[in-house]
């Protein structure tokens, strides 16, 4: 359980809230690069951390993320005309560049300096990998750009998708470090999903449904290790890294691509689940990429033209009781991503954590909440820079390894959970 005041603190991310200020210390995904596919592309509406924004790519290829509403009369700039070097409000013609600076007010005299004094709130927007990243904090404290490995590999090595989740970010994120649900909720996928099946490690998973857990601090967050019995004298370890505030990776399986998530608050009752796959050593195969597009692995099949999953709360996630009965889909819902979102959304927009009955296997979640709380309060009260801001903290990998029983998992697997350019992932 969690005290109500702490639940409130961790789940509210609007401007001026402790958790909102914490998120504003980090570079985070604002949208996918594919949403602004070319110079002069139509602008898109975004809501991030409860702020309504418009992203656009101007005629020179510069990215901008600005206040959604025109400074003049408050009309939405989503209706804007993406013209030469700026976005023009179609109501009265006020035009803004990618920094939010007003560069033209047609009703003013030709030599007027009025526009120079009009500026919309704006945030930087930078393309790294498939993602456009933003930083919504104090410009004077803007950290170096993110260095997550998935975004830095060559384009043909990675794939990123996103989906709208109708719940608070925290309950979505907590699923990312909750290793104990995999054996149940996702058990069908271990046997059938084209991006999971066939790995030797899957058998360890299926043979031992009561894993032991270790939760250890890292510079940027945590490592959550789940160990199961392997061959005589050895353990199979699945190691999940979390980098604050909301980056998680899933331990790999065989030579399949490695994957993970970013959980980004839209507002307090909705979040974006960014899901990525990459292989540091080779391009994704055509079959792998197609499987990801089709919603396999950690990805979702979305309604065409949107980032809303086809299986969503409005259609009861296309529940199939027959598949549930046979165990092909343990919960009766198809796909890893929707299996998670269906249950996390069912908890309500913001789950009441005062009612929980946690067990020791939830220690990763308990520890993560504690770290988030400490970081938010430390920032609020003392201005302490939180873990995960330093790009060096981003250099982590998940791993799936078999270790002698006497080995401490972080001693033995330190290299395995660290990005080593040119070195393969550690996977069984």
């Amino acid at each position, binding site marked *: 359980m969690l005290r109500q005041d702490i639940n409130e603190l961790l789940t509210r991310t609007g401007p001026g809230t402790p958790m909102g200020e914490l998120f504003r210390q980090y570079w985070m995904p604002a949208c996918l690069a594919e949403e602004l596919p070319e110079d002069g592309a139509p602008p898109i509406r975004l809501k991030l951390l409860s702020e309504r924004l418009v992203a656009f790519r101007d005629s020179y290829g510069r990215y901008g993320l600005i206040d959604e509403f025109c400074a003049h009369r408050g009309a939405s700039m989503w209706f804007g005309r993406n013209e030469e070097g700026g976005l023009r409000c179609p109501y009265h013609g006020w035009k803004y560049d990618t920094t939010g600076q007003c560069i033209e007010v047609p009703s003013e005299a030709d030599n007027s300096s009025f526009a120079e004094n009009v500026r919309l709130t704006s945030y930087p927007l930078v393309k790294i990998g498939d993602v456009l990243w933003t930083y919504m904090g104090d410009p004077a404290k803007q950290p170096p750009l993110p260095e997550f490995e998935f975004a830095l590999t060559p384009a043909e090595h990675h794939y990123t998708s996103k989906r709208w989740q109708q719940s608070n970010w925290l309950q979505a994120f907590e699923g990312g470090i909750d290793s104990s649900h995999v054996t149940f909720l996702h058990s069908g996928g271990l046997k059938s999903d084209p991006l999971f099946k066939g790995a030797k490690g899957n058998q360890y998973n299926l043979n031992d449904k009561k894993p032991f857990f270790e*939760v250890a601090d890292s510079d940027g967050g945590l490592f959550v290790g789940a160990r199961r019995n392997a061959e005589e004298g050895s353990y199979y370890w699945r190691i999940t890294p979390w980098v604050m505030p909301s980056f998680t990776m899933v331990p790999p399986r065989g030579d399949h691509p490695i994957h993970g998530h970013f959980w980004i608050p839209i507002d307090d009752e909705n979040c974006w689940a960014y899901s990525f796959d990459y292989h540091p050593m080779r391009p994704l195969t055509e079959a792998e990429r197609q499987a990801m597009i089709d919603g396999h692995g950690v990805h979702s099949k979305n309604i065409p033209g949107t980032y809303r999953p086809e299986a969503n709360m409005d259609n009861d996630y296309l529940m199939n009781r027959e598949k549930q009965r046979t165990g092909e889909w343990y919960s009766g819902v198809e796909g890893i991503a929707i299996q998670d979102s269906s249950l996390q959304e069912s908890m309500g927009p913001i789950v009441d954590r005062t009612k929980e009955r946690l067990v020791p296997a939830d220690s990763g979640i308990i520890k993560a909440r504690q770290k988030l709380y400490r970081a938010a309060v430390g920032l609020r009260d003392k201005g302490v820079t939180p873990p995960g801001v330093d790009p060096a903290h981003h250099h982590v990998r998940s791993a799936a390894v078999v270790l002698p029983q006497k080995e401490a998992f972080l001693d033995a697997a330190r290299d395995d959970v660290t990005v080593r350019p040119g070195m393969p992932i550690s996977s069984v």
Partner: protein
Amino acid sequence: MAVETQTLSSCARAATAEEARYRIDRPIAPSRAGRVVALDPGAAEVLRRTAQQEWANARFYICEPAGSGAQDVVLRGIDGGPATLADELASASVVVMVATSDAGADCAYTLGKACWERGIQTAGLVVGDGTQAGTAASAAVAALRPHARVLLPSADEADVVDLLSALRV
């Protein structure tokens, strides 16, 4: 004739904040009879301070080797009062072991074995950085690893409080 028991979009309706008002709001009793055991003198100091907080159903102990033979242990209350391992475990549903060094390795073995035989959940916290090889804390991790279903190898004192609070003991 088949009866339609579900309406379309029942999930959408059930998951709203408005519907949350209708969730059963019954007081939750402490769900765990927790026994919190210090395995070495350093851990005993941690638990003396922790025990001063208000707990619903937790009891705090210090475990020491009995000296009468390997794996025999003596349990006493944090206030020095006598306790019997078998009696305390008879009513326990979770045992949380706290260590700062490997001095309590025999205690961890005995407690872990006794819990396993009784089907009692176990958790272990090593106060200190047990992820650094060669430290007392890392030795404690090695001693606890086989016996704790969940292990926090680099805990601090606040972790003990937070874990016990989250478990409602």
